[in-house]
C-alpha cells in the first residue's frame, strides 16, 4: 500500500496504449472459456463455440439485413438528435431566459426510461422503423443538449466581447465563437449519445421484436440456439467498442488543441 505515497505523487497521464484494450478482450474471452468449461451446461457455450457462430450470423443474409436495419435506425436517430440538440444547447448556454424555460422540463423528462415509451409509441406509429428511430432520438437528445449547454456556458466572456467589438451578429458569434469553443464538451456529449443510442437500439428491438439485433438475440434465446445468442452478444459488444473507439479517434482529430480530461465518457445521463 506504499503505492499511495510513491505513485500518488506523480500524476499519471490518462492516455492508454492501443494494445491493452486488445489484451483486455482476450483476457475476457479466456475467462469466459474457462468459466464455461467449468460450468459445463448446455445453455452456456464456451467462448470458442460462440466465436465460431459469429460468421454464421454475419454471413447469413437474414442476420446481415437485421444488423444493417439496426445500424440504419441508430444512425438516423442519432443524427437527428445531434442536429436538434446542439443548437438548442448552445442557445440555452448563452441566453439565461431560454435556459430557464427549458431546464425544468428537461429535468422532468430525464428519469423517464425512453425505451419504455416503445409500447406507447408503437400504438401511435406502428412497430416499424419510425417508432424505433423516434425512441433512439428521444434517448440521445438529453445528454447532447446538456453537454452543449455546459460547454456554451463556460465560453470565456472576453471572446464574446471581442466578437461583438468586431461587429459580429449574434448568430455569427454563436456559430463562429461559441460553437468551436464548446466543441470539446459537445463531442463528449455526442460520445455519451453514441453509447446511449446503441443501448436504446438494442432495448427497443428487444421490446418490439420485428427486426434488428435485439430481435435475433431474443428469437435465438426463445428457440434455444444458445450459440447464436452469445455470438450476437459478441457482435453487439464489438459494435459498441469499435464505434466508441472510432468516435474517440475522430474527437481527438477535431479537438486536438483541447486537453482531454478523460479517456472514457463518464456520464451516461
Amino acid at each position: 500500500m506504499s503505492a499511495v505515497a510513491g505513485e500518488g505523487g506523480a500524476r499519471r497521464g490518462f492516455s492508454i496504449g492501443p494494445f491493452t484494450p486488445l489484451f483486455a478482450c482476450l483476457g475476457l474471452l479466456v475467462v469466459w472459456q474457462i468459466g464455461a468449461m467449468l460450468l459445463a451446461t448446455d445453455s452456456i457455450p464456451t467462448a470458442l463455440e460462440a466465436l465460431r457462430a459469429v460468421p454464421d450470423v454475419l454471413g447469413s443474409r437474414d442476420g446481415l439485413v437485421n444488423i444493417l436495419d439496426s445500424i440504419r435506425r441508430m444512425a438516423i436517430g442519432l443524427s437527428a438528435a445531434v442536429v436538434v440538440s446542439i443548437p438548442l444547447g448552445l442557445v440555452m448556454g448563452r441566453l439565461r431566459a431560454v435556459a430557464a424555460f427549458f431546464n425544468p422540463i428537461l429535468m422532468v423528462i430525464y428519469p423517464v426510461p425512453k425505451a419504455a415509451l416503445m409500447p406507447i409509441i408503437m400504438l401511435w406509429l406502428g412497430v416499424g422503423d419510425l417508432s424505433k428511430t423516434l425512441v433512439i432520438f428521444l434517448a440521445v437528445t438529453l445528454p447532447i443538449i446538456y453537454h452543449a449547454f455546459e460547454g456554451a456556458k463556460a465560453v470565456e466572456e472576453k471572446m464574446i466581447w471581442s466578437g461583438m467589438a468586431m461587429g459580429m451578429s449574434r448568430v455569427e458569434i454563436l456559430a463562429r465563437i461559441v460553437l468551436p469553443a464548446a466543441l470539446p464538451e459537445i463531442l463528449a456529449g455526442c460520445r455519451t449519445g453514441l453509447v446511449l443510442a446503441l443501448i436504446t437500439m438494442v432495448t427497443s428491438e428487444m421490446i418490439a421484436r420485428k427486426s434488428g439485433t435485439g430481435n435475433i438475440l431474443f428469437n435465438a434465446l426463445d428457440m434455444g440456439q444458445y450459440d447464436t445468442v452469445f455470438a450476437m452478444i459478441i457482435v453487439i459488444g464489438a459494435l459498441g467498442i469499435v464505434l466508441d473507439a472510432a468516435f474517440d479517434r475522430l474527437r481527438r482529430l477535431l479537438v486536438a488543441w483541447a486537453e482531454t480530461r478523460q479517456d472514457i465518457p463518464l456520464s451516461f445521463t
Partner: protein
Amino acid sequence: MRATFPRDFTLGIIPILLIGALWQAIVAYGYAPPSLLPPPGQVFTRLAQQLVGLDYLAQAAATLLRLFVGFAIAVVLGIGIGLMAAVHRGVDAVVRPLVRVLAPVPKVALYPALLLLLGFDHASKIALVAADALFPILLSTYYGASTIEKKLVWSALAAGTPPRQVLYKVVLPAALPSILTGCRIGLVISCIVVFLAEMISSTDGLGYLLVRAARSFQTVDMFVPLISISLLGLVLNALFYCARRVLLRGFPEV
C-alpha cells in the same frame, strides 16, 4: 440571483403546463381516440388509486428491491475497484483496459446471457442493474481519487498516518464529491434499467405491469407504471441531492 428566481420559475413552469394543455386539448377535441391517448385526468386518477392499492404496491416493492440491491452492489464494487485502481499501479494496469473495453458495451445485450446464467428470477435483473450502474460510479471514483491534491496525502504521511490508513482517511473523503456525483448518475440509471429488464422478461414489477397493459391495450394502465417509475427516479434523484449536501457540509462548493 434571488430576484430572478420567480421569473425563472415562471418561465420554467410554462413548457410543463403547455404539454399538459396540449395533451388535454388533443383528447378533448377528438384528434386522438381515448384508446390511443387517454385524458391526463384519467391517467392521474388511476395513478392515485393504484398508489394506495396493495397489489400495485407489491409490484412496486419487487421493483424497488431489485433496484436497491443492484445499486448497492454497484456502489460497493464501483467505489472499491475505483479507489484501488487509483492508488495501486498493478490494479490500475488491469482495471483500466477492462473498463475501456466494457464501458461502451451495451449492457442490456448481456441480459440474455444473464438470464441463462442466473435464471428468470431476481438475480438476473439485479445483475443487469449492477452492471449498468457500476461504470459511472467506478469512473467517477477513479477520476476523483486520482485527481486529489497530492499535498493532502503527503501531509497525512508526514503527520504519521500509516500508509494503509491514508486510503480511507484521506483519499476517500477527498474524492467524495466526485464519488457522490457518480452514485447519483448510477441511481437514475438503475431506475431506468430495472424497469427495462422487467419489461423484457418478468412476471412481476412495474415494467411487467406496462407490458401486461400493452398486451391487452389498456392504455391508461400503460401510462401509470411509466409515470410511477419516472416519479421514482425524480424523487430518488432529489433525495440523493439532499443527502449529498448533508454529506458534503464543509466542502468547498462543487
